Structure formats: C-alpha cells, structure tokens
C-alpha cells in the first residue's frame, strides 16, 4: 500500500504556496460557525416547517448516533496515528455489539457489557495487530478479512447463545439491561420544552438543541464524549503519545531513538479495537436496546470517514461524527420531510462556498461548478415535497461522499500510515 491509501498524497506539498493568508481554526471562528449553523437550521425550519431539524428529540438522537461513529473514528485515529490502517473497525464493532449485549445479559450489569464489548473489540484489534505488525500483511486486506470473520463469529455466537434465551432469536438478543438515563432537573427542562413548543425563530431552536443535549443522556454517552479529550491528551500531551505518533510518522526514526515500534503499534491497534468495541456495545445498549444482526450498518467505515474528515485529529473527528450522526438521526425522524428540509440548508451552504470561491479565492471555474450544483440541489428542493424513504436511509453515506470529495485534498495523513515496517530494516 502506498501512503495514499486513505487520502491524497499530494496535498501537503501544495500548501506552502500561499503562506500569506492561511485559514486558522480558532475558538472564535468555531463559535461563529456554530452560531451561523444554528441560524441556518432555524431559518430552514421556519421556511419548511420541518420541526425535526432542531427538535430536542432529533438532537438527542444525533448524539446517540454520533457516539458509535465517533468511537469508531477514535479507534481509527489511534491505529492510524501509529501507522496502521484499520479498515477492520467494522468487524471489531460487530464483535462489540454481540459482546456488549452478551456481557450485559450474562452479568446483569450494563457496565459489564461495555467492558465485554471493549474486550471483544480488542481481540479483533489484537488479531489485526498480529497480522499487520508481526506478519506484515497488507493492512486493508487484513482489515477486510477481520470484518468477514467478525460477521461470521457473531452470527455463529448469537445462534448458540441468544437463540436459547427467552425473548431472543437467531439474529437478535433479548432486551439488554440499560444504563439509567440522566437528565437535568425539571425546572430547567420544562421551560425549555415550553419555549421549544412555541416555534419562535431561533429561540425555540436553541431551546430544542439545548434540551436535546441535556436531557435523557446515557452515562455511557458522557464517558464516550470524555474519551475524545482523553485521547487528545494521551496522544498529544504525553511522552507515550509522542512516541506512538512517531511510529506513524517515521517508524525508522522512532526506532533509532530506542522506541519499540512493534509494542507501540500493538498497543495502538488493541486500543483502537477496544474503542470500536465500545462503539458496538453502545449500539446494542443505548442506540438500540438489543443486539441485532447487521446492527452496525457500516458505521465502522463511516467512523473511518469521520476521522479522515477530521484530518486525523480528535476535535475534527468529533465534528465529523456529529455531522454524520445528525444526518443519520434526521432520516429516522420523519425522514422524508426532514431530509428534504436539509436540502435547503445544503443549497445555502453551497451558495456560500460558491461566493467564497469567487470573491476570496478568485477561482471562477470552481465557483461556476459549485454554482451549478447549488442550482441543481435547489431545483430538487423546489420540485419535491419529500424524499423517498429509500433514499433518506443513505443520507449519512451521501454526506460522507460529499464531505470527503470537498475536503480530502486539504488533509494530511500520518506520513507512514499503511507502510509496512520491519525492525532493523531502515534505510
């Protein structure tokens, strides 16, 4: 595999040409962008009447759906920062769904399920590490094999375990014990609910979003969210993290400084699997309330896309996960209407991009193409009332493709990701 496996290799060399005005993401820019986004959603909701764009329920569901994607993405981050492409995340996540449900049922404790999910995923990670690090197998091939294996193992395991439990079946577990949901006290929640019901411009939207964020939150959600800053701290603020990342940037240099690259890669890939496994357990316990076959629905892959979108950084990855989780949630909540309203948002965003390209970057041709796309999306929006249900289910996938096609060229993967490394063979 060349290093261009998951992103374009030429991007970093183009960057230094325009040193004068480089876009920097600061807290102020981020907050401004968030505010603008809420304003935009609020506008779209008022125009189309699709209340689920900013309803508490939709936001709550987005968070619940973003978590597994984000955990898979974090898993991808750990592995790829150490130089191992982990396309087997999907398989490890599938292991996590079964283990999560089984552990919770077996021990009657949801946290035991989470732990079991992590272990299940970590076993997948260990397998991937053995194949890729010790035996030097191509990372993508090993990942694909692990995904096939994960599917087979879980289908088999669920048939010999869940099928015999009351309420379970060949491809489904009995209801899994759940963690108790946390909410802010009534005196905060109720006024927000009242405000949301008024459907005022902006105010009701902010109320809905806030209420979605702070009511009915699973403790596992909070743990998962905390894993993002934790990963950042460990990977970027500790000596351990620096060594781990050096294995992904230049393993030979790391080796010359006395870092045991194999050990670090093993640790990274096992943690990667464990994170994906927790994501799977989350799916089985929180997002749904039981294990079901095919529950992951490619979320491991979408997580990987979220990581690429986030430029191999925890913060960006979380943003990507929220974006994909939001589109996933919208399609579940009156999908036809909500996704249709989303088209208006896309139209406005595309128009803004076109103007930016024309005025700031002076790229007339690019602006023209974006402009044509804007008009096309708007025409679809104007001519239809809702999106057929067959298409709303792929909103996250289409979003992934669109976002990657717009962003992939500006991204920089770890320099040695996917490159086979063998000890003592540096040049």
């Amino acid at each position, binding site marked *: 595999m060349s290093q261009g496996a998951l992103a374009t290799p030429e*991007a970093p060399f183009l960057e230094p040409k325009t040193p004068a005005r480089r876009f920097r993401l600061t807290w102020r820019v981020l907050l401004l962008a968030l505010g603008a986004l809420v304003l935009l959603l609020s506008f779209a909701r008022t125009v189309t009447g699709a209340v689920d764009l900013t309803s508490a329920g939709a936001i709550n569901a987005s968070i619940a759906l973003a978590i597994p994607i984000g955990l898979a993405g974090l898993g991808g981050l750990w592995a790829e920062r150490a130089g191992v492409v982990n396309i087997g995340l999907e398989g490890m996540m599938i292991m996590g769904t079964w283990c999560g449900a089984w552990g919770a049922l077996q021990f009657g404790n949801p946290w035991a399920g989470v732990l079991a999910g992590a272990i299940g995923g970590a076993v997948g990670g260990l397998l991937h590490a053995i194949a890729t690090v010790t035996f*030097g197998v191509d990372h993508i091939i090993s990942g694909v*094999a692990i995904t096939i294996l994960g599917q087979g193992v879980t*289908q088999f395991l669920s048939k010999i375990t869940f099928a015999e439990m009351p309420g379970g079946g060949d491809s489904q577990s009995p209801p899994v014990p759940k963690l108790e949901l946390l909410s802010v006290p009534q005196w905060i929640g109720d006024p927000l609910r009242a405000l949301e019901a008024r459907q005022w411009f902006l105010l009701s939207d902010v109320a809905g979003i806030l209420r979605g964020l702070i009511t009915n939150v699973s403790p596992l959600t909070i743990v998962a969210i905390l894993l993002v800053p934790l990963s950042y701290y460990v990977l970027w603020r500790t000596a351990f993290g620096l060594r781990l990342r050096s294995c992904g940037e230049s393993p030979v240099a790391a080796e010359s400084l006395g870092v045991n690259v194999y050990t670090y890669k093993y640790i990274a890939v096992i943690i990667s699997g464990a994170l994906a496994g927790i994501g799977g357990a989350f799916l089985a316990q929180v997002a749904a309330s039981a294990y079901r076959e095919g529950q992951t629905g490619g979320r491991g892959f979408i997580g990987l896309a979220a990581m690429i979108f986030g430029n191999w950084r925890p913060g960006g990855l979380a943003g990507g996960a929220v974006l994909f989780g939001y589109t996933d949630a919208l399609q579940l909540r009156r999908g036809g209407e909500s996704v249709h309203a989303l088209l208006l948002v896309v139209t406005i965003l595309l128009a803004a991009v076109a103007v930016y390209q024309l005025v700031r970057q002076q790229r007339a041709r690019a602006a023209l193409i974006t402009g044509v796309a804007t008009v096309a999306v708007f025409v679809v929006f104007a001519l239809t009332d809702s999106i057929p249900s067959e298409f709303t289910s792929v909103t996250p996938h289409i979003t992934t493709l669109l976002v990657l096609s717009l962003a992939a060229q500006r991204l920089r993967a770890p320099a040695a990701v996917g490159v*086979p490394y063998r000890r003592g063979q540096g040049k």
Partner: protein
Amino acid sequence: MSQEKSTFTDRLLGRVSPAGLLSLAAPLVAIVFAALITMIILTVIGAPPLDTLVSMGEYGIRPRSIVLTLNAATYFYLSALAVAIGFRMNLFNIGVDGQYRLAALTAAAVGGAVTLPAPLHVALIIFVAVLVGAGWATIAALLKVRRGVSEVISTIMLNAIATSLGAWLLNKERLAVEVAGSNNIGTSPIGPSGQVPGLAIISGTQTKVFGLIILSVVMGILYYVVINRTRFGFDLRATGRSESAAVASGVNVKRMILISMVLSGGMAGLVGMPQLLGASYSYSLDFPPGLGFTGIAIALLGRNHPVGIAFGALLWAFLDTSAGILQIQKISPDIVTIMQGTIVLSVIIAYELVHRYQISAEQRRVSRQLASTTPTREGTPA
C-alpha cells in the same frame, strides 16, 4: 504491498527457486489450520468434530452438490476477477457488491422489456450489465483521480447507496412487477430468447450447470491475456508494483486508475448474469448480498492469478454448499463463515511467511555465490 507479488510473476521473472512447492503448501497449511480451528469450535459446542467435517465432505461430493458448487463458483469467480483487476494495481474495489446488484437489476429490467432474437437478446442484457457496473465504478474512480477520495471509503459508501437506489427502482411504480406465486416483487421476467440453457454435464442429478460457466472461463482467459500479455497489463502491474517507477517510465497513473476501475466495474456487472440468465430470469431482492466481499476473499486466496482464483472460488463454493448438511445436523451453518474467514486470514499470513522465506533464501543463495567467487573477501583485514 509485498504479498501482491504473485508467485507467477516471481516465476516469470526467474527469481524463485524453492517457491513452487512452498507456495502450494501455504494455502494447504492454511486450510488445515482453518479445519483445526473449526474442529475446536465444534468440540466446544459439543458436536463430534471429525464426523461433522466428514459428513460435510460426503455431502459436498454428491452430484447435486457438485452442480450447486460449480454454479456458485461461476459467479464467485467473476466477482473475484473484478476485485483482482483492481488488486493488481493496488486499487481496492470494495464496491463490487453494489456494482453487481445495480447492474443485474438494470439488465434484468431491460431484458424483460424487450424481445430480440436469442443471441442478440442475451448480448444486450450482458452489455447493459457491463455498462451499468462500469458506470457505477466510474463514480468512485472519478472521486479518486479528481478529488483524492480513497476508493476504499467511496466504494463502501456507494455500496450502501446502490442498495437503496436498487430498493427505490425495484418498486411497482417503476421497474418491478409482482412475481407469480409469491409475495416477492421482481423485474418482469426475461423471455425464452434471453435465457441461457443449462448444461447437463454432471450425471446423476436433474440440476444443471449454468450455461454461463463458459463466460467465467472466457473471462478468466481474457484476464490472463490482458494482464500478462498486453502493454496495458504491463502498465497496470508496473503501477501496482511501484507507482513512482511507472510514472518515470511514462505511465499516466490517473488514467490507469480510471481505466482499471472501469474494467473492474464492468467485470462486476457480469457477476449477476449466470444467476439471472440461467436460473431466476428476473431480478428480485433475493439476489445474494455480500458477493463483493466474497470476491475479495477469493482473489486473496488465489493471489490474483486466474487459476488460483478458480481454485479459491471452487473451495469457497464447496464450503458454502456442504454447509447444507449442518442445518440437518442442528449445527449452525455460520461455522462455515468462520472457517472461510480463518482460511483467508491464515492464507494471507502463510503467503507472507513463504514470501519472507523466499527472500531470505535468495539472500543466502546470493551471499553464498558471492562468497565462492571472492573467497578472500572474508579474510581481508578490516
């Protein structure tokens, strides 16, 4: 990267001395290893391990099972060839699944809508399938060469999109009609002129082998010739081995990516044809999913070599067919999936080990030769 170097090319380049037997040993060892794992699992769940495997083997060589195996191998083979075209230049077409299903659906709809003289009708259906498969793959190819999006991610996303596009098209308002005698809906059936008769080459059973098994064989030969005997094939392999070397010798890599992805997609379009034109004559939702992943596994087993892939496809199909007996013995047939997954993983590891052994053996040989031609070198003072 390294296990992409097939033994065939190694032999072609005259680099390998002990490889012949060893490279055959690798898959055998892997299969034995997978059988061991399976037996351990069988023991754990309390089934007699050896008896179960033996009964699977006996069931698998019944005449009817052989026909079923050949039939499944027909489309497994095409799917693996589609993947292998990409593999030869380090392109991962994980989208064979979506390409094949969309192609089969459209081809079935077109085939059901028209009536032509027999050979033309079949040719039209196959042509449409190739066109649609190639077209769907082009999206991923363009995203890669124009926007730098990894084909791994984009083809996986396109698989999901193809599934829902298929579900949308397969609606009674659009391409579907009710299938007589069932609750399923499917495309309107293809008339007799568009059907390919089966071949009764296995005696002792009524079931016939797909006529399009010939198509698979032809495609295998075509693949071999194009990859190994044409300039395009040389460029393709060169790009897969070393992109920088290919660029230096004047290969337009972006163009190569585009062409090979389109070829891979076109081949993927053929995957549904044996089933469509040989048995079901109409596309419905019961066309098997996951053929793309199977194709990847088989291409790996066969190391992208047309003959190797044929063995891989037959093995895979044999395991699938012989799993039929497990249901009767009240054992979950998914154990075969585990066995297949283990085979793939251990085969690629075994190949890698053999490859490393070859390299070190080669290094030893060269150093021996050097030592014998310049014997004083070791003794000279440093």
